[in-house]
């Protein structure tokens, strides 16, 4: 089996584009269809494409499965942490308005952190699923 030149070069061109597009979807959730979940899935497809074309061993060198698992937990912790921070500052669970002195900027910060948590968890879970299916 010879190497697959076309797919290798096309993937090299596409992967940065895909990751940047995922981050665009992540941060423009309030202007269009988007948000943490979709962005996480798109971001993980960049890694899955890399794993498909270059092999799962190379993907392990880029990002180790243990790191991915920790990231999945970290995203969930971020979500729960923002929720608990709302309680600690005297509001309800996931009440963003109390996170900063000004309610509006508090809501901005809260949404940003929550979406980041969701995105990180979803992307890591997708990559974990790929690892699970890809290992012989």
């Amino acid at each position, binding site marked *: 089996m010879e*190497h*697959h030149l076309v797919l290798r070069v096309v993937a090299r061109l596409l992967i940065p584009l895909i990751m940047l597009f995922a981050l665009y979807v992540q941060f423009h959730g309030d202007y269009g269809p988007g948000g943490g979940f979709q962005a996480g899935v798109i971001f993980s497809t960049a890694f899955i494409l890399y794993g498909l074309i270059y092999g799962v061993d190379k993907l392990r060198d880029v990002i180790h499965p243990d790191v991915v698992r920790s990231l999945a937990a970290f995203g969930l912790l971020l979500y729960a942490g923002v929720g608990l921070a709302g309680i600690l500052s005297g509001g309800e669970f996931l009440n963003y308005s109390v996170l900063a002195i000004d309610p509006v900027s508090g809501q901005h910060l809260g949404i940003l952190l929550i979406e980041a948590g969701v995105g990180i968890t979803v992307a890591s879970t997708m990559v974990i699923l790929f690892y699970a299916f890809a290992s012989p």
Partner: protein
Amino acid sequence: MMFEIVTYMILFAMLLALISAIIGQSVYDKILAVNIFGTITVLFIALFGFLTERPEFLDIALVYALINFITTIAILKFFEYGDMGRSSHINDQADI
């Protein structure tokens, strides 16, 4: 009105693509039909965004184009080797 006729034509084309996926003989025929279906779906989503006057649908069309490509590669690799993460034997060059 303008876009509706074209949208129905595209829907009809999607139906034809599905039929060809069902009657395709080899597995490659079926993958090809699914790939065609995906390409037409991208166009359908873009047209639908203009029909309902919500151009934000274009983001979804772009995502669909991306997922379509990766699906084709993943299914091909799965049918060829039985697992998706197979690494290459030749130094740093992978074949699908």
